[in-house]
């Protein structure tokens, strides 16, 4: 009896936690299908009388939020940020995960420290640097600054992935006459593709979700990301078009939520490895 009770409690707690966690997300998606009339009501309802796609039309259409262009900017910057991260993290991670060399520990510490100093701490010099280089208000500057946020963590994650590849493989390849780089390129890299996919998607998510860097470094329609566009909507339409803003929010979060489902398993393992060791 007591055991049954405790099992029951388990599910009560689980239900409470899940409702708290998921309700805001549900509320966002749910309201995005309501017509204005049903959104601005004194008694919010859990049933939509006239479900509508109006809000989504508003989000994408020229009369409303016109998100299309910003979504493309975001896909472009986040995609390239992922590629840049992959290039630097696969090489740096290989050195850290495979070789014992003088200064290895200092470099590991340097990486850990780099990921700490973000956002407001480096904003002013970055703005000045970008202006001096003439790349302010471009997608390039965002790609470059996102690298500073993603490369340290991803290099670290990659070194873990390399650690799982048996060393004999490279040794065999080198005995067969491959150079270091050929062994790396042809033998090792293909084996860490799951890792590459994981860090690529992780960087994509980080870059996609960023607001603070894009807010400071971009303002024109050619470079602005969807997060900046979305935040501006609140100021412009916050009193009138909540349904449309919600639909825009859904369009902005859906890609990352879906990507995350794909990449979750690999990432969780890598990101928590520090905790388990502790």
């Amino acid at each position, binding site marked *: 009896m007591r055991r049954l009770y405790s099992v029951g409690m388990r599910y009560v707690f689980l239900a409470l936690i*899940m409702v708290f966690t998921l309700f805001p997300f549900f509320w966002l998606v749910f309201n995005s299908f309501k017509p204005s009339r049903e959104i601005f009501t004194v008694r*919010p309802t859990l049933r939509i009388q006239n479900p509508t796609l109006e809000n989504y039309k508003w989000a994408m259409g020229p009369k409303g939020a016109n998100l299309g262009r910003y979504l493309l900017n975001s896909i472009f910057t986040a995609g390239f940020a992922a590629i840049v991260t992959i290039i630097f993290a696969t090489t740096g991670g290989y050195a850290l995960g495979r070789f014992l060399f003088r200064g290895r520990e200092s470099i590991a510490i340097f990486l850990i420290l*780099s990921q700490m100093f973000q956002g407001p*701490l480096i*904003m002013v010099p970055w703005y000045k640097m970008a202006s001096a280089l003439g790349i302010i208000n471009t997608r390039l500057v965002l790609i470059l600054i996102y690298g500073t946020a993603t490369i340290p963590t991803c290099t670290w994650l990659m070194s873990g992935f390399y650690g799982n590849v048996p060393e004999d493989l490279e040794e065999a390849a080198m005995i067969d006459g491959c150079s270091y780089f050929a062994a790396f390129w042809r033998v090792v890299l293909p084996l860490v593709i799951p890792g590459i996919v994981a860090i690529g998607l992780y960087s994509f998510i980080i870059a996609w*979700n960023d607001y603070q860097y894009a807010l400071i470094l971009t303002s024109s329609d050619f470079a602005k990301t969807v997060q900046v566009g979305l935040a501006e909507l609140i100021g412009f339409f916050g009193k009138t078009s909540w349904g449309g803003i919600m639909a825009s929010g859904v369009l902005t979060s859906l890609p990352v939520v879906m990507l995350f489902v794909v990449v979750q398993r690999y990432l969780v393992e890598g990101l*928590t490895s520090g905790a388990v060791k502790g």
Partner: protein
Amino acid sequence: MSLLKRLSHRVAYLFLLPTLAYLIGFQTYPLVENIRLSFTNLSLIGRESVEYVGWENYRHFLAVDKQFWSILWNTVVWVFGSVLFQFVLGIPTALVLNMRIRARGLWRGLILIPWVMPVVVVSIVWKWIFDGQWGILNFFLREFHLISRNVIWLGNPQTVWPSLLLTSAWKGFPYITLMVLAGLQGIEKEVYEAAKVDGATGFRLFWHITLPLLQPTIFVSGLVAIVTTWTKFELIWVLTEGGPGNTTSTLATYIYTNSFVFYDMGKGAALAVMSTLVVLIVSLFYVKMLRRSSV
């Protein structure tokens, strides 16, 4: 000794070079440049020449600007409040998700949604939930007769902080859950069995066995959470822009407003340097923890 380990260090350095160059150029250099700029009167508008003004910017905040100290206090409330509530939510959630329940993998995945959602979208949802006129929070509290009149949660100095901290806790607790779950899985089953033989159950088991064993995990993830909250102003910016008045301004939003709203980048840089010092101290502590645990 294996072939690779015998290898010249040269190859390793060659592989590391691009990453190091990138980070030194785009991450370390800005931090140093920041220090230099903090001694200048760099501005985005008006002034043609940039002059060195010595400690003037620092003196301004530490001695002249009356808001600085209250903003510093806000930052402490914001950072420690957020992290505290993230643990208050995160640890019990991890405990539940570590129990034997149906579809556990699914729940463990879904719990991470707040963490992976873009912060702007999170702010939008909560802004709507907190809305003074149409918000569902007011509706529920009215239904249960906890309030008689609508509260403008984000517009009232008394309620704005609890509202922000709730949002921040919701956004950040999945990370703590994730880390604590990993920590829980590292605890040997034998430890619990031994404790149960000695008659410990339920809460006492948690308090005397689980919590002490989780201590390293809690420290490490806590320090990361502190730094992450310290260096982000997005949530506050979208929800309140530091208002009403300066009630919810923190160092991070203040750096932004000084540099990019008032265009006084020298002052912004000075604030950033002070902020960096705090992060540096926390980070060194973090590195020390990591090194101790990996030995």
